[in-house]
């Protein structure tokens, strides 16, 4: 008996890690919040630690309108130009 495989092969994608920063000192930190309860609070507290410990500047917050969908490309492109690194995480 011959059976078709019900799965599909994944696409070839060119993902790679970004190069690590040489230092955090004096860098601009971005925040990408997902709109969930307490997300902004949690991420702002985290960003404050970077400010206190490394003298980072906190950029205006970027928000997703849909927590469970990938961030729009334009949001990520805008953030990439404005910050040295970005922190994100789930709310709730």
């Amino acid at each position: 008996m011959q059976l078709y495989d019900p799965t599909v092969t994944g696409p070839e994608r060119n993902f790679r890690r970004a190069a690590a920063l040489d230092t955090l000192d004096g860098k601009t930190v971005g925040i990408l919040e997902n709109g969930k309860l307490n997300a902004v609070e949690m991420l702002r507290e985290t960003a404050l630690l970077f400010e206190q410990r490394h003298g980072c500047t906190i950029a205006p917050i970027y928000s997703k309108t849909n927590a469970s969908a990938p961030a729009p490309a334009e949001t990520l492109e805008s953030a990439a130009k404005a910050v040295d690194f970005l922190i994100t995480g789930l709310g709730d």
Partner: protein
Amino acid sequence: MPLDSARIHDVPDDLLAAIDYCYEQGWTDGLPVVPPSVERVEQMLQYEGRPSETVVAAHPATGFECTVHAAAVNAVMAGCKPEYFPVVIAALEAMNEPGFNFHGSTASTGGSAPLMVVSGPLADDLAMNSDVNLFGPGNRANATMGRAIRLILLNVFRMIPGVSDKSTQGNPGKYSFCIAERSRGNPWPLLVQDLDYPDGVSSVTVFAGGGFCNVENHGGNTPEQVLGSVADAMANYGCITLGQSAVVLAPEHVRVIAGAGWSKTQVKEYLFSQAYRTVDGMKSVGKYRQREYDKQHADGGTSPLIKDGQLHRGLTPDDILVVMGGGDAGGHSCFIPSWSRARSSIMQSKPIGVCIDCD
């Protein structure tokens, strides 16, 4: 025609061994599947006019694509007859609309399942159940079409429980969640008519449904009494959000409501107006969020039915899907909340087996 690139597994010519093989490959939902033999898949493909390699849905995060062929293989495994296949394809295309967000609604801790509501003459043509035991077992079309969608989510899009499907508790609809709207004795225009599809066309609507909430009311003899109990279920503290709602009204309840001359539009407006909690109440259970209140009330409110100090379920009466379904006897309707707490998943509809206003 099948894809040239489709991968084929040679297995012993023994049905039970083939079923076991499918288990061993991790291709099932926990229940036995029909082994997807080449012959059966080719029969399924006869019911789709487009080439096998046509992509009908794509996963936005992983890039996995579901072709007509992959859908057919999984539909065979689910137990679908070939004539069910256009419904499966239309449901997939509806789920593929960005507004439905099938990635989020499947991956989320919320544990939703795509509820499929088939409306129109095809429901009877396929001998779907819209009657007694609507959400229960016993009907091949309902059971296998819903199951096909789950198998596609598992096998094609790799929405694997515990890995990429992080549902906290899930729900039984994740095995299969497919019903037909009842046309027999229905006093209102069918959903497919509400969608303004041409006469003779059938439709499937997909809705990211959370758990099933039975609404029992055997004593209500007015629309306000019956719908008051439905609205109360919609506004319970565990469920109330700005998300959409699905309400399946039992024929017994519909007779009370329509017998008083109410239209489906009036039903939606009444439910919306009554399905609310107060700001203080929401605060008492820790679920109040100012931004949600502002979203509903900004600029005079998203609906004139919205009152100050109240948080309604949904943004407008059109956020409530109302269909009739179930057996003649019993005051048992149901409310199914959307997985989404706001606009992260919006129900979508597609005509079945036809292309209307396509590019």
